[in-house]
């Protein structure tokens, strides 16, 4: 496993000299030894600068996490640097190869053109002719002293020289030189025979001998001239052409080198534009999508294979966009659903007091008209000529309208009416507070009030299945979107009511839902406790997942708890978790940071 330097540098407390030397990726085998023993990860690092090995012990979990992190970044020399390295290596290789080719090719050219042989031959022939000339001129100089014996010896020496030199020259595989050698040999052989004959045949006097010696001199010269000439002519020619060939070759190679450098550069650029740039674009787009920004598709540029990848990516992003839109719509639908459900419940909550307020007022109306009639009857009795009879009629009427009943019931009817009106007012007030729109900015809010309002609003969902107990501690004002908190509380208590219905409600019994609040450090804690069915451990991980629901299709969107989770964690940096025992109930705990309101609220209150 290779570890990236950055991960290791951050992991090991290297001294300051070490990291800069470790800019190359480390290879695990050579430089790192990782072992796990009894819950501890021991990592030994042998820095490549030869300094003493260092070791670090960490807890196993942390070690694994670190190693995992390192593994993630293994490797992972970027394509760009890979490209740069590759281009450098290829270019250097080309350069060396070019040099080698130049050297090898030069020698090959030389061996093919025999320039070296020709040079040598020319030199040998030159030397030979020089020595032959020296010999002949010796003869010539020794004008008086020439004896046949001397002459013969000189000729023999000249012959050795000449034949040796010509044999050397004959090795040159150049036709012109070879022809010249053959001609020269023939000429020399003829000359030699002539001289031999002359020496053997007569009695040579000094003059004749001198002539012969001169003749030999001439022949020797004659024997070498054509060869020398042919050799040197050919050598000049060949050397010149070899030199030209070498120059061309070098120019060609340099051109080739430059050309391949250009091609490499172009390739480099093409790869950068066609692969690296689109990949960078894809990475940026992935990050954008990761942030939930689905706006722009990745531009369709790059290599053909990458175009396929990009178009597939764009299709995927489109799909994700649709999904994100769908999720948003569903969240909205869930809100609407809960609003609709609430509206029905609240309608019922309000209809009940309105029913009995109406009944009571109608009764009061009747009672008042009865009493008016009674008062009239008594009034008439006072002014009547027959007061006794009129009073008797009035008493009869009193019995008929049942004044005892009225006296008992009217005050109660009024009390009930006022109670009913109060109830409607409470519900309407709670609704108004509950529906308080969540603005862009958080504002300080009393969460106990939010709990009370939510319980009033949700009362219709709760009262038939559970007794609601509240245990509200002293809370500071919390900086929050109170509408969101209301929604979270509503979803939790409705969820609790459903859990209770599934648990004990089915048997006609009632459960208990407890809502607690308290202040802990810089957090406000809200707990919603039910004694319902509980959450089976196998679905515990999915509870906050959008669309996850245990209810029948059509009975819930599976968004309630997911929405609560999103509102608490994303909008408020709070946390929401639950603790459940199947069969005996669930506790949801919401923690919200108090935020700036706590500090700012105290002086404000002091001013007030």
């Amino acid at each position, binding site marked *: 496993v290779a570890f990236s330097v950055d991960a290791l540098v951050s992991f090991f407390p290297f001294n300051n000299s070490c990291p800069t030397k470790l800019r190359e990726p480390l290879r695990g085998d050579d430089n790192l030894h990782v072992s796990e023993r009894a819950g501890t990860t021991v990592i030994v690092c042998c820095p490549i600068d030869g300094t003493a090995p260092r070791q670090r012990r960490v807890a196993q979990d942390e070690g694994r996490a670190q190693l995992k992190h390192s593994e993630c970044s293994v490797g992972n020399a970027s394509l760009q640097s890979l490209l740069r390295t590759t281009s450098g290596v290829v270019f250097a290789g080309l350069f060396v190869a070019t040099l080698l080719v130049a050297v090898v090719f030069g020698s090959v050219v030389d061996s093919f053109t025999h320039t070296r042989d020709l040079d040598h031959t020319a030199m040998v022939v030159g030397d030979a002719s020089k020595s032959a000339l020296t010999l002949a001129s010796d003869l010539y100089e020794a004008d008086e002293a020439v004896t046949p014996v001397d002459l013969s010896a000189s000729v023999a020496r000249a012959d050795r020289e000449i034949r040796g030199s010509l044999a050397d020259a004959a090795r040159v595989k150049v036709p012109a030189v070879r022809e010249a050698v053959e001609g020269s040999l023939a000429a020399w052989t003829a000359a030699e025979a002539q001289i031999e004959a002359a020496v053997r045949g007569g009695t040579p006097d000094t003059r004749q001998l001198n002539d012969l010696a001169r003749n030999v001199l001439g022949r020797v010269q004659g024997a070498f001239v054509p060869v020398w000439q042919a050799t040197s002519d050919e050598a000049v020619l060949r050397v010149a052409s070899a030199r030209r060939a070498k120059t061309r070759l070098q120019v060609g190679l340099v051109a080739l080198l430059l050309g391949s450098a250009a091609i490499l550069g172009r390739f480099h650029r093409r790869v950068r534009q066609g692969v690296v740039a689109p990949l960078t674009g894809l990475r940026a787009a992935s990050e954008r999508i990761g942030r939930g920004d689905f706006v722009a598709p990745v531009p369709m540029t790059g290599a053909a294979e990458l175009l396929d990848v990009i178009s597939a990516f764009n299709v995927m992003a489109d799909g994700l966009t649709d999904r994100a839109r769908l999720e948003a719509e569903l969240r909205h639908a869930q809100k609407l659903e809960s609003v609709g*459900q609430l509206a*029905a419940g609240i*309608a*019922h*909550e*309000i*209809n*009940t*007091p*309105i*029913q*009995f*307020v*109406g*009944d*009571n007022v*109608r*009764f009061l109306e*009747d009672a008042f008209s009865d009493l008016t009639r009674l008062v009239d009857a008594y009034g008439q009795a006072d002014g009547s000529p027959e007061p006794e009879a009129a009073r008797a009629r009035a008493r009869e009427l009193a019995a008929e309208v049942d004044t005892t*009943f009225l006296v008992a*019931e009217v005050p*109660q*009817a009024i009390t*009930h009416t006022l*109670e*009913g009106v109060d109830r409607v007012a409470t519900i309407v007030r709670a609704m108004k507070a509950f529906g308080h729109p969540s603005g862009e900015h958080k504002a300080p809010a009393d969460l106990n009030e939010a709990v009370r309002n939510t319980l009033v609003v949700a009362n*219709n969902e709760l*009262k*038939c*299945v559970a007794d609601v107990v509240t245990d509200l501690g002293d809370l500071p004002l919390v900086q929050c979107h109170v509408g969101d908190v209301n929604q979270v509380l509503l979803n939790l208590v409705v969820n609790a009511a459903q859990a209770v219905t599934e648990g004990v409600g089915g048997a*006609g019994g*009632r459960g208990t839902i407890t809502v607690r609040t308290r202040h802990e450090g810089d957090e406000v804690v809200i707990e919603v406790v039910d004694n319902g069915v509980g959450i089976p451990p196998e679905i515990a991980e999915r509870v906050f997942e959008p669309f996850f629901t245990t209810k029948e299709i059509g009975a819930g969107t599976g968004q309630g708890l997911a929405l609560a989770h999103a509102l608490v964690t994303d909008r408020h940096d709070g946390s929401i978790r639950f603790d459940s025992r199947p069969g005996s109930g669930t506790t949801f705990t919401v923690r919200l940071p108090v935020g700036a309101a706590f500090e700012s609220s105290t002086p404000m209150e002091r001013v007030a």
Partner: protein
Amino acid sequence: VNRILFVDDEPSILAGLRRMLRSRQGVWDMRFVEGAAAGLQLMDREPVEVVVSDFRMPGLDGGQFLAEVRRRHPDAARLILSGHTAEHDLMRVVTIAHQFLTKPSEPGELVAAIERALRLRHELGGERVRAEVSGIEALPSPPSTFCDLVEALESPDSDARSVAGVLERDVALAAKVLQLVNSSFFAPGSRVASLEAAVVRLGIQTIRSLVLIDEVVQAFRVPDGVSSDWLTLLNAHALDTARLARRLAAPEERDDAFCAGLLHECGQLVFAVCRPGVFAAHLQFWERDGRPLVDIERETFGVTHAQAGAYLLSLWGFPVQIVEAAAHHAEATPLEASGRLGASGAVRLAHLLVESERIRLCEAPGDAWACDGSLQPAGEFDAVRAWRAERAPLGVAS
């Protein structure tokens, strides 16, 4: 004295009702009870004629409570009085409660509903027959209704007219729809007598939910001894009567006349459901003896299908005109030959015409319709002529 039982989980509601109904104290013996369990206990102790229950209560809710009441005391009329508005729950009680009232109820509405439930109670012989009628969840529908209705509802160009077209071919379902639409629960406010308006008021969605309740569109087996196309003939007779009654009635009574005509024979359906054996025997006597069906029923059973139908319609909260049309459709009293026929008169006349000219369902053969002479020349005669000219509804042998 009729005993009325009010059940609610809110003491304030009960106290309010007690005070508001003070003036009825001499007429009814009213009991106000908190909670369903206490209500059942009271009913076990003493007979109760009408139960008015809240829907949403802890423990047993209104639906469960009334279902239990139907099981233990089927004779009692069952009314729901609730502020609850979730349709999902309402559908649970459409076959259990007789009438549906919403909170807050209009003044007098509750009294009127209770009176409707009580009106024909004592005309209907013994308690057993009453119990059987008030225990009915729904009347039998022809087997084709379900498919036809689903087709009409699913069709892309489905509208109130096409759905109403299916409903008017089925007396049972038409009765249920009209019962619901005339309860303040489902359609607060005005009274609705036309099926098309009923479909519009209830909404396609509610009709669909209604159809999907098993008890509402029942699979019905025609009783042994009854001709297999009896139900088809009855529905055709009803529709034909309804159409003719609409022509005959005074303009302001036309919708009521149609509705009353459609429902006037529902008593036969009641007997077919409650007493299939007795009903089959009655039909056989009727065919053999050539006497009106009501006469046979009165002699052998004591209760006529006209009375049973009227009682059911009254129990279900139908208005007086429609109940009377059902009650009097087979009476031997001479026709009133006035110029302006009410719904009841129009249904009686239409019934006799359909009996004598198209489908005989309960009258004696031959003498059902004497002559056209008693028709008013200007009004009814033209209407009858126009009716005779038009094609008979499906299934009517002319």
